[in-house]
């Protein structure tokens, strides 16, 4: 009976293969030799990226069963997913966390490939297609954030449009093409839905297939040995000898590590989804509700920080010139360094470049998490003046503290570590500025501070400056203008601490 069953299965298999003729190429792909030293845990990130991509396709299709790509209904369909549909929240969370994992793994894969010299001859095109895959992954992350059609998405589109509009001459057209009309509205969401669900995934599938095909045809990069130099003339013969003498079939010799890591990543995405839950949606995409401070998703936070910190005049040139240059540089990289050392141990500049980029992006991302450049919109009405700053003060000085709060100075200046960080903290401002300098700064502004001359009466200015003059640590005298003392004489100086 068992023999008959086995024979039946074999016959059915042969019937299909006679028509499909896929068994031979599959066997060839599975059995292609890989260098023994390339079977390393460092080589699992490519297959992990593919795993997460497949996971995104599955969870994406599941979400599309409920999600409505209409500006009028997208937000409520996400609420339904979160609260009404069984485990809808979990599928949304898987898709959101899958997106974060995918960007992270693609970046790690890229760094590993670069440090192991895998972009060098003859794998230049594999690298270039990899760059396009990275850009598409980021494109998926951005368009996906738009599909979560909430306040952040709505204003995020405004930011995207404002950046796109700065392209010389074509800017206004690019904006209308991107928004699908003159404003952010129904057509905008539909267009981003088409990009996120059809256009970019289609391109991703095509490019991933090419990327994989080239890995199969050219062979996986061997473990880089310091001193083993890549030369166009000899590399392919050397690689062939290596896989012949010291190679093993990909299945099962190397694939088991990919399999383990793939399962680990899927479980990691699921665990993050379970513990942290889905992303948003935040408030409704209602343009008439402006009490919002829109922020991009994690992987674009560095850009958000950069746009706050660049000098205004440098911003547009930077936005328009640097990204194309970086992309061009990445594409040209394998042509500029297509030969030579592969090992990162002999490529100090490569290592420093990676570290510098990582530290820069990491720092900007960290800064964007607490946005020291943004005014705290409610600090003036919400943050109390620390008691120690009013204790024992005169009526005038207290009036100054009131002016300080009412005129929203607190939105940009902190007292006792509470308040905005846009301007300097004022806890010891009297040590830095004399009375005259304080008055000038308040009335005329400057150094990135607005001028308050038109919005403060002379009495208010006097009170405010009197309060600010008390802002010095106990035992440390406030700044004073020595010349003023000479001109006016000690008697007329009302600054505390100047009396003999």
């Amino acid at each position, binding site marked *: 009976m068992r023999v008959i069953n086995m024979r039946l299965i074999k016959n059915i298999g042969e019937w299909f293969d006679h028509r499909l003729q896929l068994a031979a190429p599959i066997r060839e792909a599975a059995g292609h030799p890989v260098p023994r030293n390339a079977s390393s845990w460092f080589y699992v990130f490519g297959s992990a990226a593919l795993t997460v991509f497949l996971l995104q396709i599955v969870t994406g299709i599941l979400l599309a069963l409920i999600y409505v790509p209409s500006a*009028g209904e997208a937000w409520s369909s996400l609420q339904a997913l979160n609260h009404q549909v069984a485990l809808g929240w979990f599928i949304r969370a898987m898709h959101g966390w899958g997106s974060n994992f995918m960007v992270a793994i693609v970046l790690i894969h890229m760094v590993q490939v670069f440090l192991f010299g895998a972009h060098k001859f003859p794998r230049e095109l594999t690298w270039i297609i990899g760059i396009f895959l990275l850009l598409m992954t980021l494109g998926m992350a951005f368009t996906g954030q738009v599909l979560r059609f909430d306040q952040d998405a709505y204003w995020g589109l405004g930011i995207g449009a404002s950046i796109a509009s*700065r392209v010389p001459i074509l800017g206004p057209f690019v904006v209308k093409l991107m*928004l699908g*009309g003159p*404003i952010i509205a129904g057509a905008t969401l539909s267009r981003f839905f088409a990009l996120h669900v059809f256009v970019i995934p289609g391109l991703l599938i095509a490019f991933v297939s090419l990327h994989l095909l080239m890995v199969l045809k050219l062979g996986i990069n061997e473990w880089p040995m310091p001193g083993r130099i890549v030369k166009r003339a000899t590399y392919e013969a050397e690689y062939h000898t290596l896989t012949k003498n010291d190679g093993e079939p990909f299945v099962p010799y190397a694939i088991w590590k990919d399999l383990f890591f793939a399962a680990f990543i899927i479980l990691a995405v699921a665990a993050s989804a379970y513990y942290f839950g889905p992303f948003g949606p935040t408030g409704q995409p*209602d343009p008439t509700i402006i009490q919002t401070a829109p922020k991009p998703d994690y992987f674009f936070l560095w850009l958000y920080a950069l746009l706050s910190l660049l000098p205004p005049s440098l911003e547009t040139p930077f936005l328009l010139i640097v990204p194309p240059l970086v992309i061009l540089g990445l594409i040209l990289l394998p042509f500029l360094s297509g030969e030579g050392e592969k090992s990162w141990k002999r490529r100090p500049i490569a290592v420093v470049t990676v570290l510098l980029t990582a530290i820069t992006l990491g720092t900007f991302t960290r800064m964007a998490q607490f946005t020291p450049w943004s005014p705290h919109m409610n600090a003036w009405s919400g943050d109390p003046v620390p008691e120690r700053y009013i204790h024992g003060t005169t009526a005038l000085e207290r009036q100054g503290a009131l002016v300080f709060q*009412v005129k929203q100075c607190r*939105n940009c200046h902190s007292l006792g570590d509470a308040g905005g960080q846009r301007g300097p903290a004022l806890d010891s401002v009297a040590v830095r500025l004399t009375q005259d300098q304080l008055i000038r700064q308040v009335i005329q502004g400057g150094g990135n501070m607005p001028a308050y001359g038109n919005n403060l009466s002379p009495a208010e200015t006097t009170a405010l400056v009197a309060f600010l003059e008390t802002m010095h640590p106990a035992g440390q005298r406030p700044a004073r203008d020595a010349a003023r003392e000479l001109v006016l004489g000690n008697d007329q100086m009302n600054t505390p601490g100047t009396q003999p």
Partner: protein
Amino acid sequence: MSTTTDTNSPTDASLSRRGFFMKLGILFNGFAALVLAFPVVRFLLASITRGRGDGYLSWVPLGNVSNFPEGETRMATFRNPLVMPTDGKTVDTVCWVRRVAGDQFQVFAINCAHLGCPVRWFAQSGLFMCPCHGGAYYRDGSRASGPPERGLFEYPYKIESGVLTIEAGQLPTPGDPVAGLASEKPTCV
């Protein structure tokens, strides 16, 4: 496809009858693609071509002039001139209306001139502040501090039988500040 070195062979595409028909077939498909390209490109660029010659802009009412006290800045909501059935809550847009005196107004876009975030008005300090990157503007819309390179975008306005009307319908951006009128605005209060 198999290639041959024998130029007189009947399979040579450059000479044979079938080779000629293949080229004709490719040409025919090229023609079909060209015919199709016109509607496809026209459709894809529809959002751009419609906008030419201020096609998106029209005059929309903000309410009675009496709703806006002199010397104050108030928020006003208007319905976008072009409405699509799927727009949902995005059919409405807000703006800041400053009644300078009498029939003299300034109507500012809600979008920061830096990157389009919604600016908020603080009457006490007479400043508009942006929550995103910290741009600030004076009450007349001129730049006070922060990353914006210019003042707030302004809508052209007129008063028709006691109703304040603005010319709107397009998201103002640094590269396309609505109708270009905003560059000629007063510089002091």
